């Protein structure tokens, strides 16, 4: 019974203080809420350690059992250990991993170009998708196609050079129909968050208890 009640009491305590801190500027409430936030940050930092341990456990198991894509797992684990090792070495020898460190060098000349390359591949996939999938199959698809095309050319200076109306049209699409839809989504999501938050705080919903 305690296993269920204690987590619920902790949730109520933390949740109530967080809400009170938002609405009331009382030093006692702020002090307690600040302390709870600090504990939360410590828990997050611990979660990173757990995450690293989990990555090692899962990927090393795949490598040991020679499951699908196991050579890629070796690259992943090796890269992670090298970055962590170099970072720790820098911390011990020079006290930081900022400008001029070996860690910064690896970050700048290996991680950055690799990440940028993967991201840049999007340009090729978008062009392929534009050619093969972006079709005016019906009225709604045609409307989407026309508005997307207008925004695409209206948002770049070359579009403005062709006609001064294009940027105005693009801006109108973004500021009126787009924002109307966004507002609906934001309001709906916010109400859902409030409802779920209250259900969790009052112990009606207990995702942290695995269904108990």
């Amino acid at each position, binding site marked *: 019974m305690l296993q269920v009640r204690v987590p619920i009491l902790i949730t109520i305590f933390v949740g109530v203080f967080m809400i009170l801190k938002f609405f009331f500027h009382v030093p006692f409430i702020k002090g307690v809420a600040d302390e709870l936030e600090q504990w939360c940050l410590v828990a997050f930092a611990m979660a990173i350690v757990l995450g690293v341990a989990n990555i090692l456990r899962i990927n090393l198991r795949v490598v040991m059992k020679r499951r699908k894509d196991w050579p890629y797992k070796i690259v992943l684990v090796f890269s992670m250990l090298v970055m962590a090792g170099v970072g720790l070495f820098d911390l011990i020898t020079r006290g930081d991993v900022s400008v001029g460190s070996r860690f910064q060098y690896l970050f700048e000349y290996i991680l950055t170009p690799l*990440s940028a390359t993967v991201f840049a591949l999007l340009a090729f996939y978008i062009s392929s998708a534009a050619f093969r999938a972006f079709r005016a199959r019906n009225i709604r698809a045609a409307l989407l196609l026309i508005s997307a095309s207008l925004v695409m050319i209206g948002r*770049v200076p070359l579009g403005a050079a062709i006609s001064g109306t294009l940027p105005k049209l693009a801006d109108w699409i973004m500021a009126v129909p787009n924002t109307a839809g966004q507002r609906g989504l934001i309001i709906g999501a916010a109400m859902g968050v409030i409802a779920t938050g209250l259900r969790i705080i009052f112990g009606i919903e207990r995702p942290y208890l695995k269904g108990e």
Partner: protein
Amino acid sequence: MKKSFDRRWLFLAVGLVVVVFLRIPFRLKYAPNQKTRGVYQAVESLPPGSIVYLAVDYGPSSQAELLPMHEALVYHMLKRDLRIIAGSVWESAPPVTDKAFEKVAAVLRKEGIEKKYGEDYVNLGFKAGLDVAIAKIGSSIPETYPKDYRGAPVKELPIFEDVENFDQIGLLCNLSAGSPGARQWLQQVQTRYNVRMVAGVTAVMAPDLYSFFQSKQLEGFLGGLVGAAEYEYLIERPGLGMAGMNVQSLSHFLILGFVIVGNIIYFWGRWKKRKEELE
């Protein structure tokens, strides 16, 4: 037998446009929009010596889009004698922040302006905790970041002499490529502490921010590379944004061309099929 189109021709066309027009510089005319002007005016309105909190929430994968505006903003702020406190809730952001500071400080040095780390700008590094970390930064910056990215106690840094929380911050500027990002800073800090805020985000995130701009929670925002290019135009310092915008402009037209050709082929196919059925 129906022969399918080899999409590698499309890839080649995109690759050629990017490579060729990166090599051939040309000057486009810019007409910065209200959102970009809002960011510029917010920075211009701050008196020299004011503190800006720069929340850098992006990693190396988004550098191509966000680093140009990051550098342009830091250049503008430091040139106006504003002081910058930069922090991040993204683990891969601190080295990017360091790079932008070092690059801009070197440019300003060449112009005869000396800016010192710890006095004029500081990189606080990464703080784990997502939204909670943002809320905590709102309550107390030195408590959340007892040490900076270089390991120095922040309370000993001159820039922190009179800074405790957002009451002393003149402007909050967020650069983000996802979550946590501009929306979380709006929820946890801007609304709660009523601090002036601007943002710089990737092009796909920009549509999210229009409603916050219209409600005046955001004084302005830069959306994608075009936002960076417009900002560079406003501060009269062409950089990576304007160079990249030439290529992006042409790529947009190329993709539009693909859409048109794709639709012509689609309707031609439909028309032929219908004709065959009738015959």
